[in-house]
């Protein structure tokens, strides 16, 4: 089902192991995050540490409720850390900002009262571009996402897949320091999802943007990621960081299958049995 991404021509970007690297962009260090339910403090993320290098696409995966989305929202600045530090380009992420553009899972993340072009151009105008510059840039990124013919449509006239394309174009057009994607394809049908994964790979390669991508699909993690950070059940810690080689991205190949089995065993180690055929399509 999942199309293989085109072979990458630039130097190998994946990193063998997190450590002291000069090009570290995102550093999550002993992050602990919790929230209050009826006054009681619940810990979702116990102690998570990992580094992301500039230009890398890193996937965050884990069982339901493991706090992967919570972690992304904290990096985005929507939630506070209980303990630990998170820095992007050396600066702590205490509030939301356009340097960490977020693509959400929900289809209603577009402004319904703005057409497609303006949905992408408006955030640029509010970040110091003139109207003409903003629209030019918006057109460029919308074209990359294949939306040139939908510029004057309003979001309610778009399909779910097209809405997510607009949201991705909007995030890329901001030319952020890094991109945070919170299961953006989670509510799409399998075919649309595969197509959007390929498009995301293409635009990511073209722009070289650093991406943190939360997913609960093992296949998506392999197809899109340079590395996969696997979290445990909550309160979560990092179970393992798996590097995805170019060979493993060829769907159906020996390496693909072995990485998928490996990730599956990491995810389901907490007692739940993996049903691989089901996991393939329903995640």
């Amino acid at each position, binding site marked *: 089902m999942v199309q293989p991404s085109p072979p990458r021509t630039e130097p190998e970007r994946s990193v063998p192991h997190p450590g002291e690297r000069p090009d570290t962009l995102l550093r999550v260090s002993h992050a602990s995050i919790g929230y209050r339910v009826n006054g009681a403090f619940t810990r979702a993320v116990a102690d998570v540490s990992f580094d992301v290098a500039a230009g890398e696409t890193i996937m965050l995966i884990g069982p339901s409720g493991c706090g992967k989305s919570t972690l992304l929202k904290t990096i985005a600045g929507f939630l506070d850390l209980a303990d630990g530090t998170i820095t992007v380009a050396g600066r702590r992420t205490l509030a939301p900002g356009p340097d960490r553009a977020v693509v959400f899972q929900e289809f209603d*993340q577009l402004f319904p009262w703005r057409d497609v072009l303006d949905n992408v151009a408006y955030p640029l105008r509010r970040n110091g571009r003139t109207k003409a510059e903003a629209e030019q840039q918006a057109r460029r990124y919308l074209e990359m996402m294949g939306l040139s013919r939908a510029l004057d449509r309003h979001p309610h006239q778009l399909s779910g897949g097209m809405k997510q394309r607009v949201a991705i174009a909007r995030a890329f057009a901001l030319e952020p320091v890094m991109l945070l994607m919170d299961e953006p394809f989670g509510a799409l049908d399998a075919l649309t999802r595969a197509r959007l994964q390929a498009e995301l790979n293409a635009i990511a390669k073209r722009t070289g943007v650093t991406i943190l991508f939360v997913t609960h699909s093992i296949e998506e993690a392999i197809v899109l990621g340079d590395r996969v950070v696997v979290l445990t059940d909550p309160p979560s810690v990092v179970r393992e960081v798996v590097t995805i080689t170019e060979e493993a991205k060829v769907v159906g190949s020996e390496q693909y299958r072995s990485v998928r089995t490996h990730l599956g065993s990491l995810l389901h180690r907490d007692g739940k049995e993996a049903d691989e055929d089901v996991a393939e399509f329903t995640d």
Partner: protein
Amino acid sequence: MSLSSPTEQQTIAPAGGTPAPPTTTTDAAPRRVRDWRWGSMPVWLRRVLVVVLLLTGWQLYVTVSGVNPLLFSSPADVGKALVAGFQNGELLRSTGTTMRVLLLGMLFGSLIAVVLTTLAVWTRFGEDVLVVFSSMLNPLPSIAVLPLAILWFGLSETALVFVVANAVIWPIAINVNTGFRTANRTILAVGRNIGLKRWRMISEVLFPAALPHTISGVKTAWAFGWRTIVASELVFGVAGGGGGLGYFINNSRYYLDIPDVFAGLVTIAVIGLLIDMVFILIERRTVVRWGMKT
């Protein structure tokens, strides 16, 4: 509901009949050119026919029953009074006065409502103020404030504007506030993510997101304002002040000019209709076009 949608529904499913058979069969009978059933006529025609029916019944009743013309006028006489009233300028002037007061009251009322709701979304204190004030003052029929208004401002337009503003603040404020509270969380998160600060969040995200509620609030406010202004003018007429449609109606009764009384009522009804159409147009160009109308 937009005016056009009932027609579309009617053409798909004939009124009262069994559901139309699927049109996939090739030997389906060609669509009849003329279909005289009520439901297959265009909306405007149906509505016009209802008005014609009303006028005919009215005229028949007056002609046949021989009712005292000092109690009930025929549509023909009312029509003449309307034409005369607009020609000699009296009815036109009265309408102008009423509309001016109403618009001024709406303007001040909405400004205050916007300030109140903005403060309510900005600070906790503002929210408390809005909740307490609106729950106290909204149930109060604003015509009840008229005696106080007359005491403070005299028999002047200011008193009327004050009363109308009182009538329209709360429907607008309550609805805008509901719109703010129910605004889509994801959209708000996007607003913060792209770096919008508080003022732009309110003016460029919250207000447009709350527009469907705002429009229905302004609609309700118009209806409240209308009732209040006409009632206030009637009281003014009794009290000896001048101007406005309510005054026109009361004054015509005083001089036993019954067709003019009806002419005043018809004018009020027609203006209400026109305003309704303005709202439909506004909705079509905004919330309907944006797919935000539920």
